Every structure is written in structure tokens, then in C-alpha cells.
């Protein structure tokens, strides 16, 4: 196979796998909205979609995960939400991704730790967006609840993502 052929093939594989991951993250987000336990307090959620982002961050690279996340949020927003839900999700998602990228570089922090800090920063990003949109600091009273829920849910997602990575260590090399 000539070089250009393999380049083309890897681009095709990349498009296919990224499309799959975007779809998977969107479905996770939808499944999560069906869980009754997480609909009571605004902002408290498991973060199933972050399972995809977190695994992606460890399996692929930052640009791909960033693209998958933005696509997921914009597509979900267009189909099920509105402009505000997109802004709201982007604030949480981008801050979370940024923190996870930084935390991944810290030695001694496993994927569970990265996920915990990602979960907390996701919630804090949404809280900041809520504060800006409503133009008040009163949303700060949600902060402790969101901090605790982000920590606990982040840990659970991190443990699951760790298991996934254990079983998929070489998925990308086969592309």
C-alpha cells in the first residue's frame, strides 16, 4: 500500500470512529436524562457522556476529543435544547476538558483523579454560566451540592473509564 493510500484509510477510520463516539456520547446524554434519580436538583448528574470524553482523552488526542465534545453539545442542543442549553453545556464541557487535560499531565493522578477534577470543574463551569446568564451570585448556594455530586459522580465515571481502558488498550493502533 502506498503512503497516500494509508493516509486516506486512516482519515476514513478517524472520521468513522469520531462519528461513532459523538453518537455514543449523545446517546449517553439521552440515557442519563431518563434516570429519575438525577432530575431533582439542577446540575446534579452522573456525567455518562464524560465517559466518552475521558476515554477519548486517554486513547486519542486533545484535538479529537475537543471536536467530539463540541459536536456532541451543538448537535444535542440543536435537537433537544436551545441556545442557552448550548452555552450552558459548553461552559461546563470546555472548562472540564481544560482541567482534565492539565490534570492528565500531573504525575501520580490516575484516570479516576482526572475524572473527579473533570466532574467538579464541569459543574463549576455550569454554575459560572448560570451566574452570568441570571446576572447574580445567588446561584453560588448550589456550589457545595454540585461540588460533592461532581466529586462522587466523577469518581464513579473515572473507575468505569479505567475499566474500559484496561480492555481497550490498543484500539487505535489497529486503525
Amino acid at each position, binding site marked *: 500500500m502506498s503512503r497516500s493510500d494509508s493516509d486516506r484509510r486512516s482519515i476514513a477510520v478517524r472520521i468513522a470512529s469520531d462519528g461513532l463516539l459523538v453518537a455514543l456520547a449523545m446517546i449517553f446524554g439521552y440515557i442519563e436524562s431518563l434516570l429519575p434519580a438525577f432530575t431533582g436538583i*439542577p446540575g446534579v448528574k452522573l456525567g455518562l457522556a464524560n465517559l466518552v470524553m475521558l476515554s477519548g482523552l486517554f486513547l486519542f488526542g486533545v484535538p479529537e476529543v475537543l471536536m467530539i465534545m463540541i459536536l456532541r453539545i451543538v448537535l444535542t442542543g440543536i435537537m433537544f435544547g436551545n441556545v442557552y442549553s448550548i452555552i450552558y453545556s459548553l461552559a461546563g464541557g470546555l472548562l472540564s476538558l481544560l482541567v482534565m487535560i492539565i490534570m492528565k499531565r500531573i504525575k501520580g493522578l*490516575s484516570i479516576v483523579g482526572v475524572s473527579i*477534577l473533570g466532574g467538579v470543574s464541569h459543574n463549576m463551569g455550569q454554575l459560572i454560566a448560570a451566574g452570568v446568564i441570571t446576572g447574580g451570585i445567588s446561584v453560588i448556594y448550589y456550589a457545595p451540592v454540585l461540588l460533592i455530586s461532581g466529586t462522587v459522580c466523577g469518581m464513579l465515571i473515572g473507575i468505569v473509564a479505567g475499566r474500559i481502558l484496561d480492555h481497550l488498550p490498543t484500539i487505535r493502533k489497529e486503525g
Partner: protein
Amino acid sequence: MNNHVMTRKDIIALAVLLVVGIIGLAVIFFYKGYEGESVLVKVDGKVYGRYPLDVDLELKIEDEWGINVIEIRDGEARVSKADCPDKICMKTGSISRNTETIVCLPHRLVVTIEGRDDDVIR
């Protein structure tokens, strides 16, 4: 690879965040300890009105973002009707204690209970 094993630093991060969260909850609970006096309604960051908690009232707010009905009854305030998509404001339920808040993000509405000495917090 042992990706599912938590390291020492993971546990430190977990513990610190949980402790900060619990302290935050304790602080808010402490401030919330007394009954509020009035209901502050804000739309898009601007004060819409301030209403006493001990006077029953049904307040319909209709603006460019949508409709919310705020009901004050028996010293409690709640959003009784809303045409927002998620209805989180309605699900929040009744509030009556100082600093408790109902937020309707799609309609940019914030309903906050104010106490006697709010300067302590602001």
C-alpha cells in the same frame, strides 16, 4: 495498565473536594438557619420586585423569554406554573428560608428569599 486503581493523589483530591463541599453545605445551612422575610424576584439580572413572604400572592411574569407564575402562600414561595422546557423551577418546590433560591435559567428568572440582615451575606 492498571487504570482502575486509585492512587494516593486521587484519594487526596477526593478527600479535599468532599471536605470543601461539606464545609460549604454547613456554612449555607448556618446562614439558612432562620426564616426569610421577603421574596426577591429578578429577571435577566434586574430586580423585578420584592414581595413579603407573609402575604399570599400569585404573580404572573410574562416576558420575552416565557411565562412563570410565582405563588406565595403560607409563608412559602414556589413557581407554580412555567412554560420552560425543563420545569426545573417548578421541581425545585417551595422555598421559605433565607437565601433559598429558585432559578429558571431559560427565562432568566431568579427567585430568592431574603432575610432580615442580608448585609451579612451580600
